[in-house]
């Protein structure tokens, strides 16, 4: 881009020594195990109790999501900074959930007039 740039580029260090430094898991195995977990999710939804379904489904979603994150997105090989970044996002959501919970779930709406 900048042809007039002087010698000794500041951002030379930004270019990684190796373009691909992370490992490559066997993607097919990950893919198949995702499918198996997915099948479990679908069958779990046949349980009549919605709360149980919710918990099972949510836990499996977390497992699946983290599998995609770790292997497909190669988070496993990324430096700790990325983990911190994602951790902060999750922390944000945790605070939000805790703050919202008492004011959404346990409140029964009181309506002045009939809708």
């Amino acid at each position, binding site marked *: *881009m*900048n*042809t*007039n*740039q*002087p*010698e*000794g*580029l*500041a*951002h030379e*260090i*930004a270019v990684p020594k190796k373009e691909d430094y992370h490992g490559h898991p066997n993607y097919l195995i990950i893919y198949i195990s995702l499918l198996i977990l997915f099948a479990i999710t679908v069958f779990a939804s046949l349980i009549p109790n919605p709360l149980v379904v919710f918990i099972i489904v949510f836990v499996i979603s977390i497992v699946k999501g983290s599998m995609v994150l770790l292997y497909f997105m190669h988070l496993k090989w990324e430096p700790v*900074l990325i983990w911190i*970044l994602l951790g*902060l*996002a999750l*922390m*944000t959501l945790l*605070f*939000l959930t805790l*703050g*919202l919970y*008492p*004011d*959404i779930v*346990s*409140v029964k*709406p009181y*309506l002045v007039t009939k*809708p």
Partner: protein
Amino acid sequence: MKITRNKWQNFIKNNLTMNTHKKHGFWHRYFFSLDHKDIGFQYMLTIFVMVSIGGFFAYVFRMHLAYPEMEVPLFGLVTNKDYNMLITNHGLIMMMWLALGMLLAVAGNYLIPIMIGTDDMAFPKLNKLSYWFFLISVILMISSFFMKRGGFGGGWTMYPPLSVGDFGYNTAYTSFKDRFFTANTFVLLAITFEFIALLMGGINFFVTTLNKRAKGMTLTKMPMIVWMINIASVLFMFSVGPLIAGAFMLLLDINAGTGFYDVYRGGDPLLWEHLFWFFGHPEVYVILLPPLGIIAEIISTNSRKPLYGYKFILNLTLIAAILSMMVWAHHQFVSGIDPRAATIFSIFTIIISLPFAGIILAYIATLWNGDLKINLPMKWAIGAITLFTLIGGFTGLYLGASVFDIYAHDTSFVVAHFHYTLFPTVIFGSFAAFYYWFGKFSGRELNKFWGNVHFWLTFIFFNGFAFPLFLLGLAGQHRRIADYRQFEFLMQDPLPLYRQIATISAVILILSQFIFIFNFFWSLKRGKKVTSDNPWESNTLEWQTASPPPHGNFAVYPEVHHGPYEYNHPDREDDFLPQNKK
């Protein structure tokens, strides 16, 4: 056909590439430039426009409050509807466009690349795009004043049942077009665009800081302000997420007839309050941190002494940034949230005062034993610390203590408190930065005499404007009331006088900013040329290049050997030691 395409290609080649040392026309400099300094300047000019609008609004409603019978010069008679519109848009513009824009976008764009010793942002085109988004948001915001039903009048917090409707004008909406072309929609769109602009900007700052630092510049050798802007950007990025979702939902409520905030449809207006303040409180720290960085630079340089406890300040800032996400409900103590939750939030609110006390004490400790140079930027910086700590910070304790907040919430006490926190940080901080970096930015000097006049007028009349509001608030004056004459207890003897003192001071405060504006633009064209590239004898990298810096910032890329605050090093003859000097 072929010719036009070539023309277009030439246009792109000439205007959208970075490869240039030659002179450029107006469009290039103010619209298409990819240089971070030009983009910073574009942001600055855009924000000046927004601030003048916000300041004008403040003038109009302050005049109306003190002299309710009078026709306000330049505006006319203020009706209740006008009044609501004026206060709302004053708040929105000052919080969203001035405070966030000036401190994240301008300071970040101008300072980050040059202070870490690189040529430009990591993604110059993304940077440009973020400015265009910002410009779109400004255009949307300004056009919202001219909607058929008037400007947005639902308070800058935009609490839903009111902001979904028409603020009580009792006009029936008949069609989608009718609903879409309302101030509500436009303001929400404007805010969403601005958030996206700042998100892109924030990612850019973050990547630039991590990946493009000069050789030898480790994380702890970065100037404080680079840290502060980055922490602020990341904090902004996370806290704003849920609000973007919430704003999208509010837009649907207005335009598509959904019921996310409609109690009759299972929604809850309190949800918006939570989302808004979940962003709104971290935003206060997003605004506060960059000025703290600016102040750190100025105080350390002008005390000729290392910044006291660099890592200590840094750790406290990180703690404060995380804590700031857990305190949002102190804006809602009496808004109908669970009172037990309020206790928890009260505790966190009080705790968050501790890291900031530590930071301020470290700044004061920097002054001690220093070889103080009391020049203009230093005056602004010390003024900012003094007002922010003594009045802004300490009055926060009243409001953080949930019991007194029952009384003070939504009164002028709160208004005074947040003007005392935001004005010293945002305005004093920005002015400190302007007076400090103007020589670098333009290659010319600001007039010192008028600078001093500007400082003292601003300092005195800011206090004259904001302090009476405390007394008014304690007397029970509630906010956002167009006409206090109908409340007898608010018309008892000294109170109208306080209101008039506040108004007259506010008007002088606004007028004295013209001194700065004239000084700024006059000096930009005609000011005395700077005699030295490093007039303050500072260590950081931006002072080690030409003024104004050339395209690409440095003739030779610097290599960093020292921390940014090595003043009065005992082994050196000079009292400063530039970062790139061996």
